[in-house]
């Protein structure tokens, strides 16, 4: 939301002159986050009003002219190509050093003294567009014509156009909970509390009544509409608004439409209260019904879209049909147009929740619904309609009030009174604020304060009573933010020293990372979203990428892409791993709510290892690293191996994996080992596991068998057999006898031959 400093100043007098940065800082530190503060004056620094006193042709260019421009203290010779340049014309002259944006460019540049086709130019006569100023009379390839402006030559352009302002851009998220801050008036009220300057309340001149037209308003649903004010204005002529109003709206980010609509929009920006104007002639009669939608009703809204309504939605209707979706958007049928002569101005307070539901069901978020859904103050509705009538009559003196001000206010909200214990407040703040100051701050913010310390009664003002402030906790912030958070000094909490309990599964994952990284593997992370056509996968209702609407059920599906693109990048050797959650359709262990019996889908942690190497036996390396982790962490996995593009992957579920400390000390052997190597050529189809089993059972003296060389293509395998006895030193003849048995048995059983 954009905020004009000049409008704020209409409501509160600053204690001194504020720079854009200071103003942003005050609001940011005490109230709301200011995203950006732009000083328009700074932006237009160096641009002044000038009068063209003489024009000569450019000696070398047909389309260019040489203009002498009087800027008060001196005359400047300027080269200009504007098609509408005339003697006696008032123009916007950018002197050397001004920031300008050239036609079609997006960046601002500093204007320098230049020579254009051999003639020196001491500045530039600008088009409105080049200065980012709205000019309804702009001429194509022309310059800005200020002849109607009364400013003397030399006057800064910002001053001449009333653009002497600071525009603040407020972060809307930071005022989600503050319905009172959706307009200038509310922010001015904050500043008045911060600056300790009185708020200039708008003069409460009662609106004159008239009985020309008998306006009637009926609220059928007081739960949905707390207050509805209406008045008829007649004798209108619809025109574009005066330039100051158009410029103001534009600088606050709204498009000018016509004088009536512009006033309703401007008052919304001033007060934060959305208004609507109905063309009286388009209604069946001056009778307004605030009611729920009847079955089958539709409306074409002012954006030209036909909208089907449902019966939970509130509408503003005449005797025949809905004319507006309450708090969201008006209908095209009764929209103000060039022929409108009389309007009903609506200023109402619609229910926050129902407005929000209607807007979200229709997918139609508007400036109005954004405000109503926060819960507006019904008192604001009166201020806004009064201001709208005043403004219309001001810019269109022929307009006249043609009805009574109708004010349907079926439910005046009860005052909210909060019991506040001052010593409790002090505990929560963690610092002492003098009681007088606490009360003073609350009063400055509009709260009523009664009772005596330590228990005081705080009455919430109407503009904070829409759900924003309901309990003592809400008052902590009010006091502290005005007092100043910087005055609260840091204090460390007092804790009992207890080591935090450990989570074994988390520890396992960190241990796996450590081991893999030590072994030369690189960790990656991939997105949880995958493609596929598996109906069993969990599916997003609203995927960002329509081709990946599913949640990954394994890590292969999400990491494969990364693995493949590393291969495509020409990597000769890849060792990647990921640790992440996958999502299964079956129920897990997490409840969907504390008191529910429903369980969320299972989301176990998985480990994925992916290896690729042009030269190395990747499967054995992969298997080796899995075994290494198992051994180092005392786990036993059930890895799923899978081949992909000549690489190998292992996916391992980590949920429920037990870690057992398997390290066991064996007394050192008393007798030496005898080691014999054996190289075999084995026929295809014979597995190492079979050979291993066969050898193992031949003699109890065999302590260990270790493969040290494999040529799979040749069917050759070499291994060492370790022999040892626990009782004596083995004689070599004993070992040779066993070796003979082994060789014979392998020859008989597997047709293996010794190499």
């Amino acid at each position, binding site marked *: 939301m954009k905020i004009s400093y000049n409008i704020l100043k209409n409501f509160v007098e600053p204690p001194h002159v504020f720079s854009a940065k200071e103003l942003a800082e005050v609001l940011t530190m005490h109230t709301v*986050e200011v995203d950006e503060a732009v000083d328009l004056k700074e932006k237009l620094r160096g641009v002044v009003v000038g009068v063209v006193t003489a024009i000569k042709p450019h000696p070398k260019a047909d389309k260019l002219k040489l203009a002498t421009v009087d800027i008060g203290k001196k005359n400047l010779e300027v080269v200009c190509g504007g098609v509408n340049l005339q003697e006696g014309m008032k123009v916007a002259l950018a002197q050397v050093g001004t920031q300008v944006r050239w036609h079609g460019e997006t960046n601002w540049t500093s204007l320098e003294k230049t020579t254009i086709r051999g003639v020196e130019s001491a500045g530039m006569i600008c088009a409105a567009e080049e200065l980012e100023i709205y000019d309804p009379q702009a001429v194509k390839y022309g310059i800005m014509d200020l002849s109607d402006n009364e400013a003397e030559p030399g006057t800064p352009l910002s001053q001449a156009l009333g653009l002497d302002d600071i525009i603040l851009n407020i972060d809307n998220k930071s005022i989600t909970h503050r319905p009172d801050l959706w307009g200038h008036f509310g922010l001015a009220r904050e500043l008045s509390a911060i600056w300790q300057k009185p708020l200039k309340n708008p003069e409460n001149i009662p609106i004159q009544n008239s009985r020309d037209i008998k306006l009637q308003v009926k609220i059928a649903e007081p739960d949905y509409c707390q207050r509805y004010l209406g008045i008829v204005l007649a004798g209108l002529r619809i025109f574009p608004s005066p330039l100051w109003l158009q410029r103001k709206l534009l600088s606050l980010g709204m498009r000018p439409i016509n004088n009536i609509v512009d006033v309703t929009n401007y008052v919304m920006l001033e007060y934060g209260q959305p208004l609507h104007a109905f063309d009286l002639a388009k209604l069946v009669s001056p009778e307004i019904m605030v009611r729920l939608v009847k079955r089958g009703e539709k409306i074409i809204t002012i954006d030209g879209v036909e909208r089907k309504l449902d019966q939970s939605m509130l509408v503003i209707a005449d005797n025949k049909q809905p004319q507006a979706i309450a708090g969201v958007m008006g209908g095209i049928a009764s929209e103000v147009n060039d022929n409108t002569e009389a309007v009903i101005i609506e200023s109402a307070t619609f229910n926050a929740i129902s407005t929000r539901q209607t807007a979200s069901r229709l997918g139609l978020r508007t400036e109005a619904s954004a405000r109503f*859904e926060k819960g507006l103050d019904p008192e604001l509705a009166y201020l806004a309609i009064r201001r709208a009538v005043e403004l219309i009559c001001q810019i269109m003196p022929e307009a006249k009030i043609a009805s009574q001000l109708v004010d349907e206010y079926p439910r005046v909200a009860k005052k909210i009174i909060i019991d506040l214990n001052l010593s409790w407040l002090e505990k929560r703040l963690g610092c002492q604020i003098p009681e007088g100051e606490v009360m003073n701050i609350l009063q400055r913010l509009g709260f009523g304060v009664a009772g005596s310390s330590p228990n005081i009664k705080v009455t919430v003002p109407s503009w904070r009573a829409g759900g924003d402030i309901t309990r003592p906790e809400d008052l902590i912030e009010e006091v502290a933010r005005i007092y100043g958070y910087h005055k*609260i000094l840091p204090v460390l*909490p007092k804790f009992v020293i207890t080591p935090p309990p450990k989570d074994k*599964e988390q520890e396992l994952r960190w241990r796996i990372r450590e081991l893999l990284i030590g072994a030369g593997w690189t*960790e990656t992370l991939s997105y949880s979203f995958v493609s596929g056509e598996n109906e069993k996968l969990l599916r997003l209702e609203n995927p960002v990428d329509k081709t990946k609407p599913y949640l990954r059920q394994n890590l292969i599906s999400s990491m494969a892409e990364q693995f493949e693109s590393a291969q495509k990048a020409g990597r000769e050797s890849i060792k990647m791993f990921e640790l992440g*959650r996958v999502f299964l359709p079956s129920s897990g262990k997490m409840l969907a709510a504390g008191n529910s019996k429903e369980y969320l889908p299972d989301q176990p942690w998985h480990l994925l290892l992916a290896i690729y190497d042009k030269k190395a036996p990747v499967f054995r390396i992969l298997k080796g690293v899995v075994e290494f982790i198992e051994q180092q962490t005392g786990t036993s996995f059930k890895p799923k191996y899978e081949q992909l593009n000549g690489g190998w992957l292992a996916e391992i579920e980590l949920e429920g994996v037990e870690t057992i400390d398997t390290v066991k000390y064996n007394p050192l052997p008393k007798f030496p080992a005898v080691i014999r190597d054996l190289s075999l050529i084995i026929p295809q189809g014979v597995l190492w596991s079979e050979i291993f089993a066969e050898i193992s059972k031949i003699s109890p003296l065999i302590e260990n068998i270790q493969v040290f060389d494999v040529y799979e293509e040749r069917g050759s395998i070499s291994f060492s057999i370790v022999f040892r006895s626990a009782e004596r030193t083995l004689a070599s003849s004993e070992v040779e006898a066993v070796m003979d048995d082994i060789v014979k048995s392998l020859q008989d059983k597997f047709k293996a031959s010794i190499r």
Partner: protein
Amino acid sequence: MSLHQELDKLRGKALTDLKQIKDQDSLMALRIKYLGRKGELASIMALLKQVAKEERPQLGKLVNQVKRELEIAFLRVSKTIGDRKSQGIDFTLPGIKPPIGHLHPLMRVQRELEDLFRSMGFMVLDGPELESEYYNFESLNIPIWHPARDMQDTFYIKGGKPDNRWLLRTHTSAMQVRALEKYGAPLRAVVPGRVFRYEATDASHDHTFWQLEGLVVDKDISIANLIGTMKVFLSGIFQREVEVRLRPGYFPFVEPGFELDMKCLVCNGLGCRSCKQSGWIELIGCGLVHPRVLEFGGLNPKEYSGFAFGLGLSRLVMMRYKIDDIRLLLSGDLRFLEQF
């Protein structure tokens, strides 16, 4: 020729031969030739038995003397050969490294934060990424109609119940009430993890990113405690004293809510590019735990209070390593990952 003379001759010959030696291998061969078990000196010693008894001690002494002399000569030559050889190594060649793996930068920073918080007595909790509306929103004081639901665009999952839909958690705050339900008070916990927002991606936004949530609940926890804890934690992370400031911020599950800014460490608050000229870096959203949240967690807000904080882990990683595109984090690009 007497034994005496033979010894002399052997000594002279050995020393002459030694001068010709250029490498350890020939030195070793020479050593075996003269000093080995079956070497020339040994054969002279064998002859000692044939010498007259009275001459033996003197000759024996002489043999030992020659032996010691040769040993020293051999040693000296061995050393000079060694020196000559070591001069042949180019010490500036790069070392042969063991295979190097790389921890993901997010995990690097997460690990650091976890260690720091554990040292301050915080539990590290791990929560579900697929959450329910109840834990992600409702129990955090964000009922269905609340405008704050629009603050976080949400991925919903098909399935679940209409009154408690499934979604991908939009913040690690979703663990707050789960933690309170499980552990009660007093509680000190952090929750790092993956979170999701339904939004278009660009260099500074991704629909998947990492956060770290913190929760402290005890008796009489105050705003001053929150500021104190955050200062200690940030000083630990940045390894220097940091200045922080609180300003109002809105999160429905805290009251009051703050944005915590840290004085820019690059310019020390003067204003520079990395703090967008403001002198401050917005880092942590925090506040006192809302009484409704305590109630949802089964605690009495009259008895307990607490503070919660959340920080963008992905953002912290990007700040720390000056990464200019958030999408690199989940790209799997090895040129990126291998830099960490």
